[in-house]
């Protein structure tokens, strides 16, 4: 077990009080920020990040260095925004990182901000993380008092301002342009792209939006060198990943592993395997938006490309494990209800489609389904994909389609049982 788990971001959690800046500094904290600001040019920092091949940990897996390189050199102010609006079903890594190691996040954000030439960075924290918001507020005050952020960092005269913003309950604000609208005090509705945030983002200026986990790796990439990071895991999706494992496992939790660890290792060696006497039925590898994988995929390496090749996605790194007690219709309904509830309502296919599929599934659950329902929801989910401003609507199809393909009999059983009851009455 110990050989699979490789704590980098999660090191010291549960043992040390990393919320205290003194403890964090004893672990080498803020040393890399100091080095970056005092000894390196922004370009050198960005090159290190590029050399590590770090890919975004928030869901899309876009190479971080490349995202930064899209910023135009137009002399306009630039913004770094850290996305801590974690709400993807099954994901709870940012929740832990925020509450346990706030300084690591601050250091990562400031290193990123320095690398892209941003003077004022923001962190957008989900409204439900009230406690995490308070912890982050205290941590920022400690860092400000120590002179690590503010108008004159490390006495160099450089400005790295930092604002914590707390949202108010909307999953869609995790989408980067929705997040920017929300940060501007508007409804969190995603924007039409292009222009992408790198060109026109916060307040219409060039902006980079990165996930908490992505930015938190930056201090370690600076400390250990990009090769260290690039060497862990496969070449095209290197490094480490905090994987949130939940569902039908014995020890649900966050486990940090090198990319390329197999799904089986994650379930058995990290999360303690299934509960006694239960059989494996499926696993959702990357949050609510990812297609379900099954027995034949258990030995797949857990990295962006391998999971994508299997027809699913690594997403935010949230694994939900299903055993033989799973009611697939209820599971599918729960996720579709989520997307129907969280749709911002801008695009008709997502707003109406999600709602409509949810109601059909609920009808099947209530025993009032008809045989054609299954084909209809599969086709509706497929047809609303790709017609929306953001990926929320597109997230309806993968899990639903993969589960119906595999466990159609479970859905049919609900319908047959329902009509048999109706006849009996």
């Amino acid at each position: 077990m110990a050989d699979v788990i490789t704590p980098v971001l999660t090191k010291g959690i549960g043992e040390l009080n990393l919320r205290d800046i003194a403890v964090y500094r004893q672990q080498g904290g803020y040393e890399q920020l100091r080095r970056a600001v005092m000894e390196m040019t922004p370009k050198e920092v960005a090159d290190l990040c590029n050399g590590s091949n770090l890919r975004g940990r928030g869901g899309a897996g876009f190479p971080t260095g490349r995202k930064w390189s899209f910023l135009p050199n137009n002399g306009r102010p630039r913004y770094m925004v850290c996305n801590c609006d974690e709400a993807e079903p099954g994901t709870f890594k940012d929740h832990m990182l925020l509450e346990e190691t706030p300084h690591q996040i601050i250091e990562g954000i400031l290193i990123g901000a320095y690398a892209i030439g941003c003077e004022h960075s923001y962190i957008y924290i989900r409204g439900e993380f009230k406690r995490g918001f308070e912890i982050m507020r205290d941590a920022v005050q400690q860092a400000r008092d120590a002179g690590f952020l503010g108008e004159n960092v490390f006495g160099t005269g450089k400005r790295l301002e930092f604002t914590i913003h707390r949202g108010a309950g909307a999953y869609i604000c995790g989408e980067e342009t929705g997040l920017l609208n929300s940060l501007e005090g508007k409804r969190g509705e995603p924007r039409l792209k292009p222009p992408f945030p790198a060109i026109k983002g916060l307040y219409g200026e060039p902006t980079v939006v990165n996930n908490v986990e992505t930015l938190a790796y930056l201090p370690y990439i600076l400390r250990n060198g990009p090769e260290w990071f690039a060497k862990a895991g496969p070449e095209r999706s290197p490094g480490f990943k905090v994987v949130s494992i939940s569902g039908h496992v014995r020890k649900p939790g966050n486990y940090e592993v090198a990319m390329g660890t197999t799904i089986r290792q994650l379930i058995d060696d990290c999360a303690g395997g299934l509960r006694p006497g239960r059989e494996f039925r499926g696993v959702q590898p990357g949050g609510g938006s990812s297609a379900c994988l099954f027995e034949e995929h258990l030995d797949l390496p857990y990295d962006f490309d391998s999971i994508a090749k299997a027809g699913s996605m690594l997403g935010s790194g949230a694994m939900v494990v299903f055993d033989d007690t799973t009611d697939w219709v209820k599971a599918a309904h729960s996720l579709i209800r989520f997307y129907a509830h969280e749709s911002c309502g801008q695009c008709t296919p997502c707003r109406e489609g999600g709602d409509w599929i949810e109601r059909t599934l609920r009808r099947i659950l209530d025993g009032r389904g008809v045989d054609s329902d299954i084909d209809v929801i599969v086709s509706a989910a497929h047809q609303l994909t790709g017609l929306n401003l953001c990926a929320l609507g597109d997230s309806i199809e993968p899990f639903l389609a993969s589960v119906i393909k595999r466990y159609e009999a479970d859905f049919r059983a609900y319908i047959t049982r329902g009509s048999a009851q109706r006849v009996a009455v």
Partner: protein
Amino acid sequence: MNAQSGTLSSASAGQPAGAAVADWSPYAQRDGHPFDALYASLLPEIARLIGLYEQKRSALIPMAHLFQEHEGYVSANAMAAIAYQVGETPATVESTVSFYTLLYRKPVGKYVVQVCRNLSCLLNGAEEIMDYAREQLGIGHLETTADGLISYEEVECLAACDRAPCAQVNLEFVYDLTRERIDAMIAAIKGGTYEIAPLAQTAKPGRTWRVEQDNGRKSAGGMNVESPNNAGGIGDRSGLVMFDLIVGKAQYESRSNERLVHETTLRPELSENGHH
């Protein structure tokens, strides 16, 4: 001061925090309303929140959180005050506030219990927990008890799937829910001994504070349609029936033409821009 005496332009000009409290907004309900005193006391904090951002409208949600903290919900007065501070109309502020589920535009209970109903919690028995909680509280999803003490809501993933089923009470996490924990929680709330502090409450809550979205019909096409297979899409006749009544009937067409002609005479720019 009369509530109607101000003009729109004076509000959208957005005087900075610190302007005389007596004339801060033409939209407010006045006459010695206790909100004036609250507003005056919060002015320094409002100025601090606005100072955190490079554009003041960014402070809209933080200000809404602030008023909700003190009033228990974001009242119409609070939205007018926020509008004044950020230089927008109250309608714009309400549009934003109404987008977010954690901002309440109507009073809620002193304890808001939010149980997670999403996948990981569901796999670990959230359904039984929710059934039990509803039964014990005697209320349903999005409802408040008659004494105004507890509001109950079933919410989406709270990012605590490792300790499912989970909930939040006044945004503090409660993990590993069991029937016993729910019993203990309700008893402690009713007995006034619960470890989590109550929310402010300045007005008596009604039965609900938000339109039930999940059973609601989001679009007109979906209104009162029994079968989700005919939710206003192709094949649904409910909208078309109305359409058939109007289109193709001479009296409607002539009336419509009449109005266009009428409008064009009144507003010449209509024809210039080719809108007719």
